[in-house]
Every structure is written in C-alpha cells, then in structure tokens.
C-alpha cells in the first residue's frame, strides 16, 4: 500500500521578499544606541576615534572598547542561547574564575600550557553540564540552579588556587589575554571568531530554530518531538565553555588568577548585553551578533565614563539608568503606549 499523502498541488504563493540586511542593520535601536554612546564619548574626549598603528598592532580608545568588552561579549554569546530557552545562567562569572584558576595553577605546576588551556576549557564545559543537568533532569528553575554554582564556584576557584592569587609568566596564556593577531588584540579576535562560528552553527543548522521553539513553549516543543532536554544541556554546556574562554582571557590579561575578583558580577553584564541585544528574558527569538553589540554598548559606556574623568562609581548609576530605560521600552505598557501614539486622538 502506498503512503498516504495530502493532495499536493503546486501553490501560487510567491517567494517572500527577503529583508535587506544592510539597510535594516543600521536602523536597529542597538546600532543607533551604540553610535550615540560613541558620539558622546567623542564629545567628551576628542581623540576617541583616533586609531594608530604601533608595533604591529592597532591602538586607540575604540580598540580599547573592543578589547575590554570582549570577555563580556564572549559570555553574552553563550548567555544569549540560554536566555533564548527562557533560562538564565548566573554562574558564568564564577566559572570564569574557575577556568582562570585551573589554567594558572596547572602551568605554575609545570603542566604544558596547551594542556592547561584545554583543561580550563574542560572545567568550563563540566560546569555548564552541571547547570544543564540541574535544569533538565532535576527540573530546577534556571535562576536557582545556576545560583548554586555562582556561589559555590568562587569557593571552588579558591580551593584550586589555595587561596592565593596565582601569577604566571607562561607566554601562551599571556598571549591569549594580551597578544594580537592581524593587528587586533587576541580577545577581540577570539570574540569575533566565536561570534561568527556560533552564529553559523545555530543558523546553518536547525539548532537556532529548535532552541527558540523550546524557549517559546517547552511543552509544545516536547509534543512536537523536539529533544528539549538535550538542547537545554547543550545550551548550558556551551555557556560554560564560553565562560571558560573569558576566564582564560581575563587571567592572561593580568598574568594571574584571582579567584575572588575574576569575572565578578560579569554575569549581570552579560545578561544585560543579551537583553540590550533584543533577546527577551521570556525566551524565544534571539540574536548572537546583537548581544555582542550589546556588550560593546556597555563597554563603550564604561570607557566613556573612565576617560571623561568621572569616578567609576558613576558607571553603576549610568548602567542602571540604561537598564531601566530598556525595561520600560520592553514592557507591555510601553508597547500599548507606542501603539496608541500615532493614532492618539480625542
């Protein structure tokens, strides 16, 4: 017997016009926001856009923004996918500390640097897997599940470093934090490559759509035959992997692993970057490049406040103001207001 099929006539549906990516890119609110912050920085510090070539690499405030923003950008790449599944990962800052501590401790004990780097990445993957297991198998709410490692992770990192700041002089680790490639600082190169690879991975395969589906409706995802738990495991594991990379960069930058301060509060910057990038905390649609852009907006603000001579405390106030503006813009209330505005009468 033949397989049943529905009457399949060719349809008259015309192919949908593709949006023009370049034109829409420059009208995105995130791009406009970044441009605005950069212009303010330029007004405060006229040399802001000056970029010089020196000793085979680029220097300048703009490059500095990219370089300093890279660790959060890398965290945001992993965090985007976690948030797209309607989750959150609070542990990434602590995982950074664990990763840095692992690499530093291993190289100071004579382990070859490549092995130490792989081991640090491996611990990040294990940490992410742990979060994923709590969220899927034990079905704990992500905010609580990852809070466990956020708190315990710093303790773990201190156990690894035995309570001291482990300094090192290993050239590979230092290169990861401070080296350059094709004139660009290594952290920027790593963040760019990771962003491109991650974006290709989720958009060229079905992973992106399936992750969004799980975030929009986990129950319907199960009914539609999606392996929701496996997807969640992968997403949290990847977030841990990203955090480990950031941890290596931060450690390499200061030539040491500081279990107490490495990555401290950066999970919140990463979440903020994702939200600025337009991925809703309610899960669903996500964009990795936009989250990276969000990280750059945050860093541009940080840098702007530093170079303008204000004390760094202002940073927190400005950042919270930005958060409030974003939350208001995303709230249902403002959605209603904006809908009403054009046709507002009476």
């Amino acid at each position, binding site marked *: *017997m*033949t*397989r*049943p*099929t*529905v*009457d*399949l*006539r*060719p*349809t008259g*549906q015309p*192919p*949908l016009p593709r949006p023009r990516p370049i034109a829409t890119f420059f009208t995105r609110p995130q791009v406009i926001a970044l441009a605005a912050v950069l212009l303010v920085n330029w007004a405060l510090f006229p040399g802001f856009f000056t970029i010089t070539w020196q000793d085979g690499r680029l220097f300048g405030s703009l490059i500095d923004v990219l370089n300093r923003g890279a660790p959060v950008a890398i965290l945001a790449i992993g965090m985007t996918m976690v948030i797209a599944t309607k989750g959150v990962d609070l542990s990434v800052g602590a995982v950074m500390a664990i990763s840095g501590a692992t690499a530093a401790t291993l190289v100071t004990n004579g382990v070859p640097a490549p092995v130490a780097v792989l081991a640090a990445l491996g611990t990040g993957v294990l940490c992410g897997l742990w979060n994923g297991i709590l969220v899927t198998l034990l079905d704990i709410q992500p905010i609580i599940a990852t809070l466990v490692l956020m708190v315990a992770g710093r303790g773990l990192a201190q156990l690894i470093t035995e309570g001291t700041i482990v300094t090192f002089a290993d050239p590979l680790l230092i290169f990861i934090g401070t080296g350059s490639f094709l004139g660009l600082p290594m952290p920027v190169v790593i963040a760019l490559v990771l962003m491109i690879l991650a974006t290709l991975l989720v958009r*060229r*395969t*079905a*992973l992106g*759509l*399936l992750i*969004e*589906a799980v975030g*929009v*409706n986990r*129950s*319907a*995802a*199960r*009914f*539609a*035959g*999606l*392996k929701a738990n496996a997807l969640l495991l992968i997403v949290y594991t990847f977030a841990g992997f990203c955090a480990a990379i950031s941890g290596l960069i931060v450690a390499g930058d200061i030539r040491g692993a500081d279990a107490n301060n490495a990555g401290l509060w950066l999970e919140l910057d990463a979440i903020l970057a994702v939200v600025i990038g337009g991925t809703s905390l309610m899960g*669903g*649609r996500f964009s990795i490049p936009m989250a990276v852009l969000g990280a750059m907006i945050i860093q541009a603000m940080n840098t702007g406040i530093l170079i303008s001579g204000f004390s760094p405390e202002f940073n927190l106030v400005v950042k919270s103001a930005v958060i409030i503006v974003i939350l208001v813009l995303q709230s249902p209330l403002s959605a209603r207001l904006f809908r009403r505005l054009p046709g507002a009468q009476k």
Partner: protein
Amino acid sequence: MTDAPVLEAPVLEAKAIVKVFGQHRALDGVDFTAHAGEVHALLGENGAGKSTLIKILTGAYQPDGGELLLDGQPIHLRDPLHGQTYGIGTVYQEVNLLPNRSVAENLFLGRQPTRFGLVDRKRIDAQARDLLGRYGLEIDVRAELSEYSVAVQQIVAIARAVELSGKVLVLDEPTASLDRNEVQRLFDVVRGLKAKGLAIIFITHFLDQVFDLADRVTILRNGRKVASQPLNTLNTTDVVRMMLGKDVAFDHHPTALAGGPKGAVRVQFQGIGRKGMAPFNLAVHEGEVVGVAGLLGSGRTEVARLMFGVDGAETGQVLVDGQPVTIRNPAQAVAAGFGFCPEDRKLDGIFGDLSVRENIIIALQAKLGWFKALNREDQVELAGRYAEALDIRAANHDMPVKLLSGGNQQKVILARWLAIDPTFLILDEPTRGIDVGAHAEIVRTINRLREEGLALFVISSELDEVVAYSNRIVVMRDREMVAELDGDTIAPDAIVQAIAGTPEEAHP
C-alpha cells in the same frame, strides 16, 4: 414523576448572559437560577461554557450581555471579592488558601479578631475550632493547612467561603481529587449547608455524584443552555445525551464506514497501560478512523498521551507495521511516524511567537535532527503546500501563529503532522473552541485523510462528530475501554448507553 414543587423566587438569577472572547461566543444567552436550599448541578463538556458562567456568577468576569439579579435586585460584580460582599462564595478544585499557614489563620485571614491592635491568636483558635465543629471537623486548628488532606482543606475552604458570604456557594469540581469516603464526607457538609438554606451550585464531571447530591441540573453545550430541570425527571442516559448533543443527529457515512475490509494493520497497541489507566489492546488499520467516545475524565486524553509517549507506558508494547517500536517519549513517537494534535492547543500545541511557517515545519525538522536543517526555500514550499491543502488562512506565513484564529491554529498543527508524512495521527478534541465553519472543514479533512489511507485515532466529546468520521468507536468509562462499536452497531443509543453504563452492566 411530576415537576418538583414550584420554588420560590431565586436567590441568584442570571438572565440571557452573553460572553464573547474575540470572535468566540463562550456564552450565548444563558439563563441560570439558584434557589435557597437547593443543590444545583451545572454540567457540560469542556468548552461548553461552565467555567465562564461560574466566573460571571462570582464576579471574575463581567458579562457582555444579560444581567445578574440577587434577591431580585440587579447587581454588577466588579471582581470575586465584590461578589463575596453580596454573599456569593466560591470553592475551587485547587484549594485557594495558604498551605503554610495554620487552619485557623486561613479561616480568619483578613478579618482576624484583634486585641489591643494585635491579632488575638487564642480567640482565633477558639473561634476556628467552634466553626469547624459545626462542620463535624475536630482537628488541631493551629497546625498548618498543608498537613491535612485535600478533603479537609476543601471543608476548611467551604467553611471560610460560607462564613464570608453565606447566600450562594459555588463548588467548582470540589471532588476531583478526593476518594470515595472523602466525597461522602464533603457531601454531608454540603447537605448540611443546603438544609440551612444556602443556594449551592455544584460543578463536576462525575454523573453519579450529580445524581447523589443535586436537586436540579442545568446542562450547557457550546455556550448555550440545553436543559434546566429537576434531576428526578432524568436518568443518566438522558443527561449524557443532552451533554453530548441534543438529538445526536447521526450523519453516518455508509460508504466508507460500513465495516468492510480495511487496509493492513498499521499500528497495534498490545496491553498498553500504566497506573490509573487499565491496559488496552487496539489495532488501527490503514484508512481507518477509530473514534473515542466518553465523558470528560473517562480516560480519553490519557489514552492518547500513552500512545504518544507523553506519559510513558508501564506495560505492553507497540507495533508499527508489525515491527515493535519503543515509545517512551514524544520524540520516539514522532520517529515512529506518529503525530498528535493535543487537546490544549495553546499550552501544548502552538509556538505562539514563531511564524506560521516555522510552526508547520517544526516537527519535520525535529524528526530530521539538529544538523539536517530545512533550508528556507524548502520551508516556504512545505508551509505553502500544506497551508493550501488545509486552507490555512494567514496573511503570510512569516507572521506569528498566535495572530491566527483558533481554527487556523488547529490547521497549522494538523499541517505540522501531515508534513512528517505520518503513519498514525492522534487528534484530541480537534474541533474544540473553533468556529462553526472551521469545524466543518476539520471534519471534512479527517474524512479526506482517512480516504487517503491514514490511520487515525480521534477523540471528541461531540458525539455526532465522532460518528461522522469513525469506522469504529471505542467507548471509555472510568479509565477503561469498556466497549467497541463497529460498523452497523454504531447506533446512537448504543453509544450513549455504553457511556452512561447501561443498567445491565452497571459498575459498582
């Protein structure tokens, strides 16, 4: 038997109530009265409008038409709290109290007796003991509410509701999670309240409980009142018939459904069961629709969930085309070529924020795996093909599916399963909550899919609908398949009686 004595003026009266959600008329001119000293049962299948009516009576919803009268005076309830001040109290299936506070605190929350501005704990406890004593409940009122059984919690909730309101008491499926003895205990309490002159509105799915407790019954169907009469004039069969369709207009398809030779067996369930669901055997053939009839709570949806691996089966095995397959989760069911349109479309079916196109291709994509992505052209082609085949009306296929009407959403889910080229399709209430036009289309589609050779398992509480497309009808009662009607034996009375449980085979 004659009519019950003419009752005096009703305590609570609803006249020609209309409630509209979007394009869907949930209630269409429904009259309802509750009299002092009677238990009035409200019956109807899911989507009949029961809960909407209750929410209007208690103030949770405001009607779009009609009026509410309390003791003959029109009232306008803003919210349930406002309803309470008029004497209308509600107890829900899920007890709506604070489980981590004491029984006494729950009884007096918001109106605690105070002494010198402080809560007078001793007096609360004494009053609580006194109050519950009147309900025959001798318990430690200082213990946390959660330490007691649901039955006790229900009685506490009733006591609180009666204290606060005291004219009309709405019991919304209070017995759903109680065992037999607890039900009797609850009923004793309700009978006591009835004797005191309360008007009690009782909602349940258990017909035997209705006959046990209620004096009068109002039956809703598709947002309209089918009947409102004393129970002593009715028997179970009458009630079932009215719930499922007033006259059960059997539009039986004689051609395809005459019980003649069917195609090969496509899917075979052998002894599939789990705790709370009797094991069943069922074979579904190519080009066959097996319809499921039974009241809500009879185990209809549970069977579908077992088949699709939503709930893992504890016993039995499944054969597809004669080959055993393992189905422990929906992903394995989809891999075996099963599709499932769940009863709760919004919760388990659609991805509201995703596009129509993505909603259609998602199951096929899940089946293909993570790395064999359907490219955009394929997606557009697939979505276009099935949208046309099922006549899905959407401005374009890139719009979020949540903007579509219920009927079109249902077709999108159907399209999702047709896209995987299924061997076996399970439809749970495929026509619930969709408008009449789309309703007829879905029924036609089911018939067409059968003619094209698909094996289908369709659950519906609309009896005339089941009969319109089923080759065979399985009747469920008390989580068991109790009867199977085939070809010529598909007759209205047979189905209704099998559902109600005929006198000969009355269950204990």
